[in-house]
């Protein structure tokens, strides 16, 4: 190749540069739209969801967050981070009913690595929290990484918020730290669920509210959708390291090892992609279309771009 660059070469280089910049800067159209305040459900855009398979947990987490701008995009220096894993049940990690402890360890480490001032884990467990925290192995993992475990069993921790877009749910008591934190990250696990069908990110919100029974007395799916219009995590990371295929959500049931992480900014799109792991169409999981109607995100797979990383 000569030293001089001809026009064709120049254009080729320029387009390659542009493409790679678009790919690595993580600035998708959707994010640009969000940046300009157009809201997440920007008409005509494509929701980006990233999916990482295989490798060690640390590597997988790094890969899945890299195109989103790595963890430092969400966790700024000195801020307070609240993570919401699924520790509803006093089940062992192998039983796949709770978020994998290694993921929590890596995530807390990553948050501190990005300069977080404080990393808190909040969960309103369904089982007695001491047993749930211990059995799931998350307490040990989080505390060895320097994070703090907090249970939401005290009613003084909750604050009532209005849900203006809600159809069935007009207001709800939400964990105060989730409302006050600088960065709220939802880390659900992927399971089947006899009541809701499946459970991912939106359903995981039931661990930050006070009265779950009320949602069942009303319409569960509509309440899940309504609530997601009021609380939006900065980031959703769905843990599909192990899938619970039967007897969900508590198990014990059939477990399938997938070693997958799904991450994205759009909570509905993340859930819709997770549905495909169970060979279910997102349309069959009623809270997703209903959340989409409220403008929370995109559930149609043809409008979602799944990026394997």
């Amino acid at each position, binding site marked *: 190749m000569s030293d001089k660059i001809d026009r064709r070469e120049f254009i080729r280089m320029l387009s390659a540069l542009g493409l790679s910049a678009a790919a690595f800067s993580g600035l998708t159209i959707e994010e640009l739209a969000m940046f300009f305040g157009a809201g997440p459900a920007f008409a005509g855009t494509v929701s980006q969801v990233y999916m990482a398979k295989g490798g060690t947990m640390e590597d997988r987490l790094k890969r899945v967050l890299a195109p989103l701008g790595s963890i430092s995009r969400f966790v700024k220096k000195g801020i307070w981070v609240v993570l919401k894993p699924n520790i509803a049940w*006093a089940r062992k990690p192998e039983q796949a009913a709770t978020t994998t402890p290694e993921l929590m360890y890596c995530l807390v480490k990553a948050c501190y690595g990005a300069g977080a001032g404080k990393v808190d884990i909040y969960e309103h467990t369904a*089982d007695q929290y*001491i*047993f749930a925290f211990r059995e799931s192995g998350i307490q040990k993992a989080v505390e060895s990484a320097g994070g703090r475990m907090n249970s939401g069993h*005290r*009613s003084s921790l909750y604050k009532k918020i209005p849900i203006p877009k809600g159809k069935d749910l007009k207001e709800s008591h939400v964990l105060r730290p989730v409302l006050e934190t600088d960065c709220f990250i939802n880390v659900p696990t992927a399971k089947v669920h006899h*009541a809701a069908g499946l459970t991912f990110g939106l359903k995981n919100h039931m661990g930050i509210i006070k009265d779950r029974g009320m949602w*069942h007395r009303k*319409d569960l799916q509509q309440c899940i959708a309504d609530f997601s219009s009021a609380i939006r995590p900065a980031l959703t990371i769905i843990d599909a390291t192990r899938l619970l295929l039967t007897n969900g959500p*508590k198990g014990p049931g059939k477990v399938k090892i997938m070693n997958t992480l799904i991450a994205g900014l759009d909570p509905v799109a993340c859930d819709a992609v997770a549905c495909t792991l169970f060979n279910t169409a997102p349309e069959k999981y009623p809270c997703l279309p209903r959340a989409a109607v409220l403008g929370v995100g995109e559930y149609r797979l043809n409008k979602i771009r799944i990026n394997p990383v």
Partner: protein
Amino acid sequence: MMLIFRRIVQVIFLAAFLALFIFTTLGPGFQVPENYFFYFSPLLSLSLLLSAHYTTTLWIIAPLSLLLLTLILGRFFCGWICPLGLCIDISDRIFRFTKRKKAGFPSQARFYVLGGLIAAGIIGVNLFYHFQPLVILYRTLAFVFFPLLQRFVPNIGDFPLHPESSVTYIGTWSFLVIFLVILFISFFGPRFWCRNLCPEGALLSLLSRFSPLRRFSKPGCSGCGDCRTTCPGGRNNSDCIRCMQCLAACKEKNAGFSFKISRRVADLDIGRRAMLLSGLAGAAIAVGFTLDPLKKKLYPRLIRPPAALPEEKFVNQCVRCGECMKVCPTGGLQPCFWESGIEGMWTPRLVPVLGECVESCTMCGNICPTGAIQKIKPEDKKYMPIGTASINKKACIAWAENKQCMVCQEFCPYLAIWAVPRGKINVPEVNIRNCVGCGICERNCPAVPDRAIKVYSPIGAGYRKRLRTGGN
């Protein structure tokens, strides 16, 4: 001087009792200390021997060591160690400022109480727990003061006093009333309870009268009677609680204690006829209790803790210390009142609405000092059903209202609820083979106002019929 020393010792023992009480909860290390005070009670050991025919090495050695010390030092336990004694001392202090009535009560009454309890125990009815000072204090602390304390001081540092944010106990008032009565009868004289009623003290008195640690007055005594008016026990060697208050009260410095072996043994002054009568009264009460109509038809929801002994044996072997209910991490274990008859008063039962029996928890059995609740491994719990859940299909959200619910199935750790597809939704159905009756479904059932799924006890009335008809 001696008085201050005694107060320090008393406070140390009360503090130890309180510390053991506070730490009888689910700590970070899952290690729960036992309350060793109970083992040193000869009365509790006697109650286990008589009414439950049960004893262990610890239940023999510990009370014997206290009895041996009593043989040497007299009733020092009452004056120096008993934590309830210190509480009564404090109330004495308050009543000292009021004008006291003269007590015409016979101090031998405590022997008659003991006689009645022993007679009932021989027949096979355990009544000792109504009068044993340590368990009275523990119950009061657990059911009255702990819920209050927790409201104001939820945790010590990072360590929560109780895993639940606010525990409550059914019938708290009754325990408070009993405790206040014991304190307020001091109005009729110092240490009224200890001197006149406490059967534990009576048991120690029987040996205390042989003790060589005796009170004496020096020859210069003018007989002013100052020591007599302040004496909380009695000047008799069997009544004396070795509190040494007479040393401080004597202005002439003529009172003293010394070790002196003497042939003269204090007279107990127990009336033979009164003793016989009290024994008969105890026996009559015991027979009456066995005829109790409530016992024949036990409350359908009388759910005993896992690995509790069979009902008949359980009510006799349980000393009602309340430790199991204090330690229960969900606060589901509650004291009975009439649910298992008069005989089973204050025994523990699970109230699932207040708290479930956690799948991997065996705290109540580990803490039980008498083995009325057996020590088991958590993995064995699924083979020891304590009840069976039953669905009221008229109240169930899924059955009656066609809504997605299945919360009971979600929570059930034993796969004892089937999800049966019905139309667009699933409805729950109990698999009685897997159900152990832990009650987690009942606690979390969202149906209002009454839970649609409830746990019924296999020893309760109408259980078999309920199983046959599916609870409807």
